[in-house]
């Protein structure tokens, strides 16, 4: 399958001004994403997990093109995103759509649902007749499980799950090739989460979409993704197929992450090995030297502070950024 998106050694930095500093003191540099690489195939779903502040959303915004990159490349169908001309950029904006975390905040409260869903269409195909716009909006609303007679309603008249469906409809109206979902279900009830995830899966299959699915909940990501990428402080810790990553995690961070997913069986829960992470995420303004995870790693060695760990290929497309990696069984829920 052809590679549709290729991220190569991506860095995203933010310059932050220290509070109460003199105007001439240099700004602090916050590294949100540091040296991240992966490829995405057509029709594939890549899950990205990591705790809050690990740079997942920044990565999503860099791919969509709303956050400037400071080093490295994002190659969309052979074109470097940073070097695109206006026409290519417009095409990229059209082909790559995004679904947001907070379903209600992502919808303009002053516009009705029809206008919201039609906005990408009227932006990229301004000549479309009103009847045609209305027909396509109605069609898509039915497709995402909303009654098409609700087009004149406003976002505050809908529930969270319905709002997310509206957001999905807006992302799909231009028939994009890649949809970046930035924690699309984190703000929803568990029962609604399942509905929305299943809807996304169905739509992906029917429309042949590629998808980047970000979440901090591994059980949701596992359900929808072909491959999973584990991020910590803007770096890749581990990248493997969904099945392999959950069954045979090799990186200590992945193991800790997986073990934090509760098992709905008290006996199994008690019996399993659970590496517990100590402490807080270090400040991204002042990341640890060498391996960024070493301050919290249960298997830390003196050499970890030295060099950046090299990405190791352990076969079958499984990559780990830890020289002391080994398979450790951390039981996962059997369902799904």
């Amino acid at each position, binding site marked *: 399958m052809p590679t549709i998106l290729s991220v190569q050694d991506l860095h995203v930095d933010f310059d932050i001004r220290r509070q109460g500093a003199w105007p001439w003191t240099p700004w602090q540099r916050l590294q949100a994403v540091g040296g991240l690489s992966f490829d995405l195939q057509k029709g594939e779903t890549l899950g990205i997990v990591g705790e809050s502040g690990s740079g997942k959303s920044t990565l999503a915004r860099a791919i*969509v093109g709303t956050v400037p990159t400071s080093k490295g490349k994002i190659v969309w169908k052979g074109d470097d995103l940073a070097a695109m001309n206006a026409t290519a950029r417009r095409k990229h904006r059209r082909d790559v759509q995004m679904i947001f975390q907070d379903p209600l905040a992502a919808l*303009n409260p002053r*516009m009705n649902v029809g206008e919201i869903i039609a906005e990408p269409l009227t*932006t990229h195909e301004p000549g479309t007749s009103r009847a045609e716009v209305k027909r396509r909006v109605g069609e898509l609303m039915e497709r995402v499980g909303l009654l098409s*007679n*609700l*087009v*004149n*309603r406003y976002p505050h008249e809908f529930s969270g799950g319905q709002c997310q469906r509206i*957001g999905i409809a807006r992302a799909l109206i231009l028939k994009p090739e890649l949809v970046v979902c930035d924690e699309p279900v984190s703000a929803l009830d568990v029962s609604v989460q399942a509905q929305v995830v299943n809807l996304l899966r169905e739509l992906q299959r029917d429309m042949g979409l590629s998808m980047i699915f970000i979440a901090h909940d591994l059980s949701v990501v596992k359900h929808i993704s072909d491959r999973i990428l584990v991020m910590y402080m803007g770096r890749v810790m581990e990248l493997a197929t969904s099945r392999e990553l959950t069954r045979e995690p090799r990186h200590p961070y992945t193991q800790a992450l997986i073990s934090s997913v509760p098992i709905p069986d008290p006996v199994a829960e008690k019996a399993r090995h659970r590496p517990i992470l100590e402490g807080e995420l270090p400040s991204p303004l002042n990341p640890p030297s060498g391996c960024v995870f070493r301050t919290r790693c249960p298997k830390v060695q003196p050499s970890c502070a030295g060099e950046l760990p090299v990405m190791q290929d352990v076969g079958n497309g499984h990559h780990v950024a830890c020289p002391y990696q080994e398979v450790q069984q951390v039981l996962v829920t059997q369902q799904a």
Partner: protein
Amino acid sequence: MITKPGDVELIANAAGLAEVKGRSLWQDARRRFMRNKAAVAGMIVLVFIGLFAVFGGFLAQYPNDYVDFTLTGAGASNGVPSIETGHYFGVDPDGRDLYARTVQGTGISLMVGIVGAMVAVVVGTLYGATAGYVGGRTDGVMMRIVDILMSIPFMFVLILMLVIFGRSILMLFIGIGLISWLDMARIARGQTLTIKNKEFVEAAVATGVRPMTIILRHIVPNLLGIVIVYATLLVPNMIIFESFISFLGLGVQEPMTSLGALINSGAGQMNYGRLWMLAYPLFFFLITLFAFFFVGDGLRDALDPKDR
């Protein structure tokens, strides 16, 4: 069974298949506003004052610049308000019909207030929203311009302008237009800064909507609640501002008048027991201001962003 064409629609309606009418935030706000009795009363009063200013002239028995020389100067004491003589509100110190002059003055005062508020809404909102949305250096430059304009003592500049270019309504409007949008620009910019980080704006950026369209379609409608409230509270301020200038004798040119000018001339007659010359213009001045304040208050409650 035979179905007539009308029946199909009926059945569709009954089945709830017809498009449901949504209730926008504006409609919600209108409902809340309508429940506020003081605000509705203020609105009604404003409508009546507006009608008075526009159509009141038809009831006047005299034009507003007709001088009845028997009633000028000391004789003005004879020009008491009366229905028989046709001077409903009496006459002013120069023997002119006060009713006709109040009608005309109310019109000028309302116009000054509304023009000032309109300039503020259009220029101030767009300027502030643009500065806030673009951000960075552009924002800095645009807002420093506002700061500089604000630091100029406007009353002084306006008086200079009126002296140099002559007193005219146009000059007055230009002066008021120059000053009124500055505060609005700041308010709009501050609000824009909070709105532009909302996800729906980001969604629009990600889809490739052009910046100007984002400002007009996503930012401004969400600013409008606060802008409208501020504008209704700005109208009375502008009326007071104009009245003050007229009170100094620099406002509109005779024989045109405004409420401020009428109050000024009426105030000078208090010693001679001709209180009506002050009372009638003052009455219209006060109820106009009160009505605007009540409406502004009602709008603020109705459009309160907390209810979103």
